[in-house]
């Protein structure tokens, strides 16, 4: 077969941050196939040096607008670990609500505004307004608003939260506000089902592609792990030493490239909703399991495109679990609590958390005055870059006979399925290979 074409997608759209796709095929042979991350580096780890322990949270929140609550919580967990701070049960419950709020917000944005237009055959959500899909758009908008208002209520603000501080909360919602939120979450069930039905009606557009890989996420016996848990892998099982996370993440530089890759048992691994589903799916709320059955999604799914469906499944879980968390908080009765006492001391702390795009780790070393001397942040999207590349390397040969435009669209869909958050990941990936 003889076929020549090249694909150059500069700045993939409807993803967070700047990434390019480059493909060059000559005589049916792939000469070049690259997923490139061209985002300007921002040097957060350098900027944290010399900052007081109280400032680490507000600064690292600015790593990412979409997952600022997740970064805030990872930051607080690392800081509190370094300082030996124990948070109250109420704080732990409210923080779980905060992470659900972000998951809801991020997942519905991704499903509704970033992926759905593709499945419906348009370039963005705007052309859908005024079309037969107007109602669906408005339903998604309503769910997105609910998620944001939930985050506003718990965190003071959705993007760059305010109330999340070392040792607890600077302010908390009232019981009346939580009750109102509970009502709205219950009322949202119908809308969610309708959105799931719309996605289901176009689910045949989701490419049927699989590649075996390793999945990594936090796990715990108590719940579907988001806020707390131990490192877990589909290949090697649980790793209890959370401070030795580097044994799992193994960030490394590729020859002739500046990218920090991550790999563990294989040449790459995946984190995110699909990884969590694959590892912890049995702990999902029954309502969420219904949605996964509806789409035929079962652990272990090796189709990265199904990450979007796993996000939809998690959306339902987060709604149900939030309702239960609010019930627990109300049963216990809300108390005005001062943040847990901090005794400033030197030490190292590590915070692990599951954010919408996967495992996030902050690692700080503080000096005896509470100033940061060293910081390391392991970002979900960085852990996925190598997996995206390897998926592309398997995918392109499988679809090489299709028109280049279709190949390009499928590759863009693949990147979008990972829901990458490129502003978080400031590294450059430069792998080329010749498929002879």
């Amino acid at each position: 077969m003889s076929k020549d074409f090249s694909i150059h997608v500069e700045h993939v759209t409807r993803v967070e941050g700047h990434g390019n796709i480059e493909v060059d095929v000559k005589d049916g042979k792939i000469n070049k196939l690259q997923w490139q991350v061209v985002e300007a580096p921002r040097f957060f780890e350098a900027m944290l040096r010399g900052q007081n322990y109280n400032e680490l949270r507000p600064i690292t929140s600015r790593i990412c607008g979409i997952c600022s609550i997740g970064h805030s919580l990872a930051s607080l967990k690392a800081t509190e670990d370094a300082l030996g701070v124990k948070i109250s049960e109420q704080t732990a419950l409210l923080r779980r609500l905060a992470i659900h709020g972000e998951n809801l917000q991020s997942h519905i944005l991704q499903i509704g505004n970033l992926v759905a237009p593709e499945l419906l055959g348009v370039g963005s959500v705007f052309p859908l307004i005024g079309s037969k899909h107007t109602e669906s758009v408005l339903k998604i908008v309503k769910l997105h608003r609910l998620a944001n208002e939930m985050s506003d209520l718990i965190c003071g603000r959705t993007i760059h939260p305010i109330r999340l501080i070392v040792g607890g909360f600077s302010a908390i919602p009232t019981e009346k506000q939580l009750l109102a939120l509970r009502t709205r979450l219950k009322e949202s069930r119908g809308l969610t089902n309708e959105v799931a039905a719309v996605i289901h009606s176009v689910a045949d557009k989701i490419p049927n592609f699989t590649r075996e890989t390793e999945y990594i996420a936090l796990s715990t016996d108590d719940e579907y792990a988001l806020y707390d848990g131990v490192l877990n892998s589909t290949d090697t099982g649980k790793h209890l030493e959370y401070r030795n996370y580097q044994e799992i993440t193994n960030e490394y530089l590729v020859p002739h490239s500046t990218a920090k890759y991550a790999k563990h048992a294989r040449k790459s691994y995946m984190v995110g909703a699909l990884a969590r589903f694959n590892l912890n799916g049995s702990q999902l709320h029954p309502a969420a399991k219904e949605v996964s059955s509806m789409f035929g999604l079962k652990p272990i799914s090796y189709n990265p495109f199904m990450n979007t469906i796993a996000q939809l499944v998690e959306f339902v879980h987060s709604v149900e679990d939030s309702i239960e968390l609010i019930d627990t908080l109300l049963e216990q009765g809300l108390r005005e609590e001062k943040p847990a006492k901090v005794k400033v001391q030197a030490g190292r702390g590590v915070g692990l958390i599951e954010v919408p795009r996967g495992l996030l780790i902050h690692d700080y070393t503080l000096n005896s005055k509470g100033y940061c001397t060293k910081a390391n942040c392991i970002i979900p999207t960085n852990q996925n870059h190598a997996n995206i590349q390897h998926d592309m390397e398997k995918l392109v040969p499988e679809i090489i006979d299709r028109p280049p435009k279709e190949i390009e669209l499928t590759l863009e869909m693949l990147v979008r399925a990972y829901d990458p958050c490129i502003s978080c990941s400031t590294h450059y990936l430069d792998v080329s290979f010749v498929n002879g």
Partner: protein
Amino acid sequence: MKTKPRVAVFDFADCEGCELEIADLEEEILELIDIVDIVSFREVMKEHSDTYDIAIVEGSIMRPMDEARLRNIRSKAKILVAMGACATMGGINKIRNQWMPDDVMTAVYGDADLEGNPLFDVFKTKAINEVVPVNYYIHGCPIDRDEFKHVITSIALGKKPEIPRYPVCVECKKNENICQFELGAFCLGPITRAGCKAICPTHNSVCEGCRGLIKKAETDCVKDLLERYKLSYEDIRRRCTMYNFGREECGVDE
């Protein structure tokens, strides 16, 4: 009917949170697209046009390749709006200007040989107006959605947007908050431009100065504060590094 102004949104080094604030307008976006045409907005749409009247630019400028892209955007736009602290004054991204670019490169990327790689050809962080002229500013980290609507609507109607020139304290008092200084905290509200509805003190947190400093901060008032709460100018300087490091270079103070 007059044609609607064409609006394009661009981002440089930042968290894209301000763009997300636009998406978070939810149903109100529909009102906005009644008065403007959004022709490019990479974060949420695939469609793109190089013909636009108003460019809304988010993020800081870190590299020659970013400068070139920004100049190209400026040459096409009649009006350029800098959106968010990274764009208006460098914001968080200027924390690293305390050190030389080589030093921060080593801190994050170690000994990797990045010589000649344009993606890593990094200079000290610049705000947008250190590279090209800016017509209007939407301050904050993140921006306030109401202020965004006000600025864009004003520009579309050919009016000058009203941006507060008084300190955050004015809005904070309106909200009947207890002063953060009275609670033992160190707040930048007295010297920071209002317009955020004093959102941070209202959630019992300090102002970090993300909207920039007001030019004529009541110096006597600040002196008085320092005396009353036993603080030094060095304390103020340190507190300002989070958003206002090197803000003199972009001179957006009013």
